């Protein structure tokens, strides 16, 4: 089924209204995500203000190289996602599928690195709560890692969900469901994916890059 058949749902007057509504709807959802992550950022800001040395010290346990690498990977995945949307618009079906695969692949690389980092932390005794046994600065350093794992864990969950949805979209793309006339799921999934990238753009300096000097 190509995209030339109408996808117009009965309650919309025309396709432009439908796309407009879908795009606006995704933005409204992203606003909820700003507040969702925002509350954890709020906890971060409160505690970092109270315990700056603890946070600086905690950040030393994080690997800047891995963090920077992941940042590059995620930004690259945003590029491939944007190119996927573009491919749909200009009816380049093979490119669309390739860019979707690329985005998913880069997402999995990101998650792989995070899995490695998490395992490493676990073995160092830095996984928070009942598994925490770092001696220095405990229990306060535990607070840094609670925030670290909550923020990055939440982010990782969003990525996993994103990759899963991209898989569905990829299947549809390979069946040539998308084209210049209709590619709404690709567009709005693009918005979601870029948002996940945005969160990381803030997470990286806030978690990995504090207290690196001196």
């Amino acid at each position, binding site marked *: 089924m190509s995209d030339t058949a109408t996808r117009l749902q009965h309650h919309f007057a025309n396709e432009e209204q439908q796309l407009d509504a879908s795009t606006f709807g995704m933005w409204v959802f992203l606003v909820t995500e700003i507040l969702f992550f925002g*509350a954890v950022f709020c906890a971060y800001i409160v505690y970092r203000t109270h315990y700056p040395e603890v946070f600086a010290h905690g950040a030393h346990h994080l690997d800047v190289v891995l963090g920077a690498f992941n940042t590059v990977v995620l930004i690259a995945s945003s590029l491939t996602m944007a190119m996927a949307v573009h491919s749909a618009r200009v009816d380049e079906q093979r490119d669309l599928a390739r860019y979707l695969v690329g985005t998913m692949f880069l997402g999995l690389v990101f998650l792989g690195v995070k899995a490695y980092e998490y395992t490493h932390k676990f073995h160092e005794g830095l996984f928070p709560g009942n598994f925490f046994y770092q001696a220095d600065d405990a229990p306060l350093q535990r607070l840094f890692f609670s925030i670290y794992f909550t923020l990055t864990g939440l982010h990782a969950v969003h990525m996993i969900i994103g990759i899963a949805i991209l898989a569905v979209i990829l299947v549809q793309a390979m069946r040539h469901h998308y084209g210049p006339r209709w590619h709404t799921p690709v567009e709005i999934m693009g918005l979601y994916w870029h948002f996940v990238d945005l969160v990381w753009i803030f997470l990286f300096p806030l978690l990995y890059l504090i207290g690196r000097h001196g």
Partner: protein
Amino acid sequence: MEAIERRVNYLNVDHGIRSWLLTVDHKRIGLLYLVSITIMFFLGSLMAGAVRAELLTPQGDLMQSDTYNKAFTLHGIIMVFFFLIPSIPAVLGNFLLPIMIGAKDLAFPRLNLLSWYVYIVGASIGIAATIGGGLDTGWTMYTPYSTGYATTNVVFPALGIFITGFSSILTGLNFIVTVHKMRAPGLTWFRMPLFVWAHYATSLVMILGTPVIAITVLMVGLDRGLGLGIFDPKAGGDPVLFQHLFWFYSHPAVYIMILPAMGVISEVIPAFSKKRIFGYGFIAASSLAIALIGFLVWGHHMFTTTQSMYAALVFSVLTFAVAIPSAVKVFNWTATLYKGAVSFEAPMIYALGFIGLFLVGGLTGLFLGALGLDLHVHDTYFVVAHFHYIMVGGAIMGYMAGLHFWWPKITGRMYNDLAAKAAALLIFVGFNLTFFPQFIAGYAGMPRRYHYYPEEYQVLNVLSTAGASVLGLGYLLPLFYLLFSLRFGRHAGRNPWGAFGLEWMIESPPTPHNFDHTPTVTWEPYDYPEMHKLPTRIGESRSHVTLAEGQPTPPEGLAHV
């Protein structure tokens, strides 16, 4: 009187349980919600019954302290999260909003159905948590008790709340996009019914606030399950931070509960005064103002914590400010009544009751917003009485008013007005008998959340429990006469009340797509003096057969911003 039209309507267009469980029709989804939240209301009422029964005597003799703690906790959680927050928006909002703006459905019908299923999952978890032993932290789940010391299962009910939050978010999202993008031609923002304005403002609060409670209860779950320590003082955490994040949502949540009710009142008052509403623009703007300023006052729940004095001052001032738009509404409703042709059908009785009870609740909110006075009455029955005046005397009365006003439209049947009036009166009397003594008891020092109390408070408590019994009876009655009307009620025509609005120009019950053709709106809202010049029917095709599927609507220039 119109002959009964045998058109296909949304109720008879399809049969069988699959057609209900897989529907994407906003009207059917509204009814699905109606059944679900009614069940949750009765569950929450049982909890209230347990509380009031225990408080008949000064001794804690009916149940253990732990059991009592669970009773009031579950009462709060069920009533707030599983009844009040969805109530008007999910039932009446879902049903009416598209019709009121001339649309054939909400922007995202499948998301609408999803929101109901998400609600069902969350509510089921809530019920399971209740049966499985309950929660005893109070609905506010303050840390570190909830994260570290409670012996009840905290994570499970927290999960139920987390999931139900997404139902709320999906509803709000749907409403916002629908209002922006799907208004009929000619229906400018300032021609929208105030019910729609109220739901738009409510949706803003749902979108901006709910994610915060979701992540906060998630963090409580992580704290408890994994020992994270985000809110644990022993780990360097700040329990007051939990309260900030909790109340950042939970205060605006009360506006989620009251704004839709105010929207109902803004429809009922003009309809039963046969008069244009006074100050339409101000009422519309006040809904937005309440939504916005409502986000700035959450710290007034924390005056007795270690929250700084400066912050407390800021919150106190802003709390006084948020009362102003509410007062604007009350003045405007009253001005609408003045010199109107007022009639006292059941919806109007509820609406008038709302105005009086909301006034008391709102004013006592100001008392609580005053720092000095709050220190004296915080955590006493004064607070309990205040919020019940707003949530029961306000929100639930508004819900009942709406249910009774639009019942003929939803079902096509009229209920027995005498029975309805009797129920309304019982509810009004029972309510005041239940909660007014609580103002006195609280001011005299009786603390909340205790099941034993000094002897001198007994008289007030007995009055309160007596009132609760009357109130309970009042709430049971509609179950009977409304259900009775479904089978035996007189068929309602399009506009049994002679009210103004697009919903009163279509069939009762509405056809599956509300309108065959999207109407064009040329009139100002609530224009009762000119109502006789307007069509009595709108958006219909000439034939009386099932409307043709996939029939394209004429491409008019759509009013969408």
